[in-house]
């Protein structure tokens, strides 16, 4: 619950407040017409008590206090009380109903707006302008990728042996031209090349994968539609949230098995890895935070969420379209043997050759060393860990030399463990 808190001081304040006597009234609405909502009145420093309500299905929250933290300490404290089982069922007062009604109305309006846009593609003139802009952009991207194609061939003609001597400028210049050509996805891949100059095998592989992009883009029309959509996404052509929401949703109990924050280009990127308990399907929720910002995300490791997800064209990234129930703790994690997980990865690679990270849930593995390298062993064979992870002592201690289930990201350099299931709880790594 406290992992929803925007920072540590809000956490502390919430803990203190949860046990406080400032609460005048709290209740959990058990009304047929309303989604499950916890509400409460808390006496703060103002004259009127603050009104707090939380829709447990999202969770969405509102508090009438002036705090700029979101969620504020009152909201968190009320959730703590609810989690502690001290909130009785009670009919919701008027202001709670008003809030839920206004939210429902907003949601309906948004859906209608989307439908309308889908029907006529926006207004008459806007639509024509939009099409013109899209055509212009496609032409610029095509020109940029054609230049990248020539540049790739130049690298091979000159030979990679000399690449180690080239500075960052060499790679960044090409990346910058791709940004100008409105192909940020390709630009990102080119910028990463600078990191592989010491490893010619990796460099050649990555150049080959870029060539797949440049060679595929001019003949998008002839590719299978799914692959074409994936390629457009990897080049960096935008996919709107509306397009994603328009795809058929997949409902499941989505288990949060990994959360990983990384700094990419001055932006904190949070990857939340989900896996469907019923379908076994992997999913990725991406969120971003600029310097000084905090993630507005409520997906907590070790919980599962009954929700509809809509997938981006590469079948991994998702948008949470609808939640059916509040998140609950995971009670079991389905894992698969190493061989099956690797087969699944090979299939994913066939559908999206540019996939950089693929989530895996490996069952019955023991962390072990093989020839100086850490791996997750299943008998004598093991999945190598990414050397950048270092010695996985937390995992080693949690497993205690016994087979466990480990969730992680598989990358070109090895597996990065994200969590371990110990039969009754999920431990972050």
């Amino acid at each position: 619950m406290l992992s929803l808190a925007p920072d540590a001081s809000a956490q502390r304040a919430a803990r203190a407040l949860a046990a406080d006597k400032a609460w005048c009234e709290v209740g959990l609405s058990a009304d047929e017409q309303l989604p499950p909502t916890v509400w409460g009145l808390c006496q703060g420093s103002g004259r009127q008590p603050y009104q707090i309500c939380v829709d447990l299905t999202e969770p969405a929250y509102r508090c009438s206090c002036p705090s700029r933290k979101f969620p504020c300490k009152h909201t968190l404290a009320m959730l703590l009380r609810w989690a502690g089982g001290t909130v009785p069922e009670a009919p919701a007062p008027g202001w709670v109903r008003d809030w839920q009604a206004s939210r429902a109305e907003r949601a309906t309006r948004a859906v209608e707006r989307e439908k309308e846009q889908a029907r006529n593609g926006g207004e008459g003139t806007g639509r024509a302008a939009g099409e013109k802009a899209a055509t212009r952009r496609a032409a610029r991207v095509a020109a940029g990728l054609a230049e990248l194609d020539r540049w790739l061939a130049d690298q091979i003609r000159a030979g990679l042996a000399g690449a180690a001597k080239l500075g960052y400028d060499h790679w960044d210049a090409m990346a910058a031209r791709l940004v100008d050509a409105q192909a940020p996805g390709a630009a990102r891949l080119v910028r990463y090349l600078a990191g592989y100059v010491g490893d010619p095998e990796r460099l050649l592989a990555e150049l080959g994968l870029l060539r797949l992009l440049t060679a595929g883009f001019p003949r998008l029309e002839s590719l299978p539609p799914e692959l074409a959509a994936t390629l457009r996404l990897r080049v960096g052509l935008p996919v709107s949230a509306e397009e994603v929401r328009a795809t058929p949703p997949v409902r499941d109990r989505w288990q949060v098995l990994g959360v990983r924050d990384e700094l990419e280009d001055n932006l904190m990127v949070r990857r939340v890895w989900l896996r469907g308990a019923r379908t076994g399907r992997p999913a990725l929720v991406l969120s971003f935070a600029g310097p000084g910002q905090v993630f507005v995300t409520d997906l907590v490791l070790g919980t599962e969420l009954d929700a509809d997800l809509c997938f981006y064209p590469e079948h991994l990234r998702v948008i949470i379209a609808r939640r059916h129930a509040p998140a609950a703790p995971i009670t079991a994690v389905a894992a698969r043997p190493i061989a099956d997980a690797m087969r699944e990865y090979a299939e994913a690679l066939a559908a999206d050759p540019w996939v950089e990270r693929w989530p895996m849930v490996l069952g019955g593995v023991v962390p072990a060393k093989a020839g100086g390298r850490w791996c997750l062993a299943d008998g004598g064979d093991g999945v190598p860990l990414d050397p950048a992870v270092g010695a996985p002592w937390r995992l080693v201690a949690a497993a205690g030399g016994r087979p466990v289930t480990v969730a992680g990201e598989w990358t070109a350099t090895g597996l990065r463990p994200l969590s371990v299931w110990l039969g009754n709880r999920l431990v972050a790594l």
Partner: protein
Amino acid sequence: MSVPRSWPDLLGAALVGTARSGGNAEELLDAAAVHALRRRAGAPLVHGAQPPPPAPVDDVPTVGPAAAARAGDLLAADAVTRNAGPVRDTAGRLELLAEWLAAAAAAGRRLPPELVPALLDAGRRHHPLRPLIGPVAGPLAGWLAAQRPEWAYASPAGRPEPEVAEGRVWELGSTGQRVAYLARLRRHDPAGARRLLEAAWDGESPDDRAALLGTFRIGLSLADEPVLERALDDRRRQVRDVALDLLGRLPGSGYGRRMAARAAACVDLAGGRRIGIRPPVECDRAMRRDGVAPKPPAGVGERAWWLEEILARTPLSSWPEPEALLGRRVADEWAGTLRRGLARAAAAQRDARWAAALVDRLTADVLARGRPEDRMLLEALYDALPAQELAARAAGVLRRGLADANAVGVGHVLELCPRPWPPAVAEAVFAALAGQLGQRAAGWRVAGLCELAALRLPADQAPRAAALAGRLRTARPDDPALAPLERLAMTLKYRQEMLEELA
């Protein structure tokens, strides 16, 4: 030339460059893409993994989730630097961690296994944590220690044996190994160790002589006296200092008798209620050999200094009872010298009775004159007092108010008091805080006390601290001097919650 078919050939051609090796660059890239995907899809597994034997089964239950989360916070090194933690610095965090570990051990619970590596890392850097690790980490600590040499201190077998075979360490080992060897030998065979060192004495370097002789602290007896007397004539100062230190700890030694005789010549107790003082007229060769420093510090007369040096080395057993001696009158110009000499003896010989008798008199001296040396001496005396005595002193000193208490080093007394502080000390601390903060000025005096009290007061005093802070804050909403007290209240609350989670 056509594009090669195998990955190594492709790589070779790409490294050289098709401009030289021939072939079409685009085709080479296409082939590289196919190979790269095939290699990735074929995900290379590693072979010959050697999993460790399973850890011993541990039936002791782990702590609850809230307590586990708190331990995780305390073990996360960066938590404090963001100033979000309950204490400001690493020392405070380690003290909280130690309290957590002791409470978990008392409750018979274990740390969740995934946190044990972080705890072993903490113990590696901070020795005082080490004895607390075993009870909460259980057999997992030893199992992990076997896999990582840096954690060897936690393995039940202790450190791995030195690489030099035991019998050869004395001849071939490094200085550190030889000192450790001799120390082990002193533990069960002091005489054998003495013979070993005597035989090697003349061949050792001065530094080694000093280091090796230091092991005689273990199992010290009068049988060691000849060796120590011989070391008093050593050319090197460090060796002589070690010998002097050991002789001073040896009851009934000739050294002690020599000092007692010198003291008796200077301090005349025959005159009934009055002590006559006749300080030494010179610092002769024999006195210098016994460690009396001939040159006084600035501002001290030669003869007074020699007297102090003799008194500081005289066995306290050669005097009457402390009160019987200190109760007598003595000429004003010698009173300070006499007290300081005896106080140094009490601190060096760690004599609680003499320390207790001297500490009040010295406190008066410090308050009257406040010489820094006297304050240091006072702190050395506190070290010799038993815990209960210290608590009584601390309470007494605090009752004089914080300004005086700080002048006589109340921080040091409180530092040495048993933890958590006994009720009398807690009362005195609250009274002093309320008294000091009641007057608007000089809030800075309380900062140090608050920081220490936050960690040492019993955690159940949290509501009382919060009430005091709240009352003062209501009266003075904008006074920054109250911040340390509020921090104290917050830390105490943190500790109270921590201990409740573990109860």
